[in-house]
């Protein structure tokens, strides 16, 4: 069988190693030099394809081994024999290396460079893992996009958007290690644009769907940066559900994004006059998981990934959070700078309070918490404080938080540990969703292995 050609770096590493061979006594070099190069080449081939091990081979194996064994070989050959020149050269080299190592500017540069290389390698590995995972998840929307019903098209669009949301979350984590992905991983932008365009393409085929949950999905999957007309999607939802504050909240967000203060004010008034706040999460997720079970029946790993990505994306209405009415209406806590939107206008304050009451009555725990927080901030009675505490407790045990809640504790050595759900747990969670389901009704506390509470796995 023919061997594949070696990667280019192996040729470079071998030439470098051949140069280092001159540090060894000439008789050893003549007797075993070719073998040493052969062994080094074999070792390079062994680690090829594993970037972290390549760096380890070069800097933690080859360099120390060569310097140590060459020094020892020169010493054994005896200074004063024909190898004297090499011994002296090696001594000078070691002294120079030691001197350089203790120069702050150089050692700092070397350490920084080494750290950056390490981070880049780790990040590239993570990006590759993410791309492979996304490829598995994309199997669902790709299959749905080929179907013709509005529901399938909408779920496909929602899931392309879920991939988008997940990738943005990954970017945010990337920024924690001062690696701005726009700078280092520009290729990711292409992935986002492609998923946004796929979502928009799927949405274009929906037509005039009359189901509110489909219109809600279509709105949440609508990415303006990818050419989707978000205003049109908002209008469709409002036409279907004029009394749902959720649609008006999206209109508020669109107006805020556009900097249109009058439109914001109108949307807030309509939201305050609405009768309920429903983001259709139960219907959306039960349809998503039903589609997943129908199209990926033999692949529990893909179904589990679909469930995890859906949980992370949620109802996807957390995008452009700074323009969200739930935050823009927030009263400034005592001692902080007041928000510009919610001060000085009694009409706005009254409408914001009405919106808070709608949110507080929502069956979504996060919305209920934000609503009660606003009401308590303004009224500060024992009843509102108690309601806020109850709502806060429920946010920990809402169904959407269940997979992300802490499932760990502290081990005997005092180290914190964490374990995520496995495929079976995610699949049971996905199977337990029904169209009528609210978030709150079936999640109970469970004692974790070391006393911390952890949500249970729903039994389907």
């Amino acid at each position: 069988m023919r061997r594949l050609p070696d990667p280019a770096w192996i040729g470079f590493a071998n030439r470098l190693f051949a140069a280092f061979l001159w540090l060894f006594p000439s008789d050893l070099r003549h007797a075993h030099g070719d073998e040493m190069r052969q062994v080094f080449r074999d070792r390079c081939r062994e680690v090829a394809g594993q970037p972290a091990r390549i760096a380890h081979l070069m800097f933690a194996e080859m360099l120390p081994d060569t310097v140590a064994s060459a020094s020892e070989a020169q010493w054994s050959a005896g200074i004063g024999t024909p190898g004297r020149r090499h011994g002296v050269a090696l001594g000078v080299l070691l002294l120079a290396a030691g001197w350089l190592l203790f120069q702050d500017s150089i050692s700092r540069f070397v350490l920084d460079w080494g750290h950056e290389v390490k981070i880049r390698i780790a990040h590239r590995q993570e990006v590759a893992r993410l791309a492979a995972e996304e490829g598995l998840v994309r199997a669902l929307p790709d299959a749905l996009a080929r179907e013709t019903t509005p529901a399938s098209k909408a779920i496909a669009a929602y899931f392309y958007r879920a991939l988008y949301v997940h990738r943005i979350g990954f970017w945010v984590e990337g920024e924690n290690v001062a690696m701005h992905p726009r700078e280092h991983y520009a290729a990711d932008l292409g992935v986002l644009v492609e998923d946004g365009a796929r979502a928009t393409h799927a949405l274009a085929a929906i037509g005039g769907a009359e189901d509110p949950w489909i219109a809600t999905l279509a709105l949440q999957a609508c990415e303006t940066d990818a050419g989707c007309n978000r205003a049109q999607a908002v209008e469709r939802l409002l036409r279907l559900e004029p009394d749902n504050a959720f649609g008006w909240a999206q209109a508020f967000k669109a107006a805020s994004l556009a900097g249109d203060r009058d439109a914001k004010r109108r949307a807030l008034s309509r939201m305050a006059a609405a009768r309920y706040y429903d983001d259709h999460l139960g219907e959306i997720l039960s349809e998503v998981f039903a589609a997943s079970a129908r199209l990926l029946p033999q692949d529990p790993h893909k179904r589990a990934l679909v469930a995890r990505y859906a949980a992370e994306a949620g109802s996807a209405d957390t995008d452009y959070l700074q323009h969200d009415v739930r935050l823009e209406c927030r009263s400034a806590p005592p001692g902080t700078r007041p928000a510009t939107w919610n001060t000085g206008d009694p009409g706005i304050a009254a409408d914001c309070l009405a919106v808070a009451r709608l949110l507080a009555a929502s069956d979504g725990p996060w919305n209920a918490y934000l609503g009660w927080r606003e009401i308590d901030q303004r009224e500060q009675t024992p009843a509102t404080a108690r309601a806020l505490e109850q709502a806060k407790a429920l946010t920990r045990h809402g169904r959407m938080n269940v997979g992300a809640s802490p499932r760990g504790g502290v081990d005997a050595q005092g180290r914190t540990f964490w374990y995520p759900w496995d495929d079976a747990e995610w699949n049971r969670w996905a199977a337990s969703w029904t169209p009528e389901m609210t978030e709150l009704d079936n999640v109970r506390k469970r004692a974790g292995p070391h006393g911390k509470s952890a949500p249970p796995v729903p039994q389907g």
Partner: protein
Amino acid sequence: MPAASPTPEPVALTPAMHHILLALLQGERHGYAIMQAIESLTDGAMRLGPGTLYTSIRKLLDGKLIEESDERPDADDERRRYYRISGVGRAAVAAETQRLAQLVRFANRYASMVYA
């Protein structure tokens, strides 16, 4: 009458040399195979680089503890050189093993005195 070959000087075994001899107890090997055998023998705790490997092999050859083999597996690379352990090498391994066993016995006895 042919001249008697000079008796090799006793060689002090370094850990690397000892492990190379142990790897060759299992059969003839080339350099990279010796490296892999040692890694396997020690569960990955010891990995020799090419420099340490061949400076050690050189000392073992000089001390006649190993010798180069002329035989090659058919399919293998003809450029590789194979090594096998000699009778002197086997004796050296046995002596080193006995020395280590004594050391272990002493350590165990000392440990039992300390922790009793």
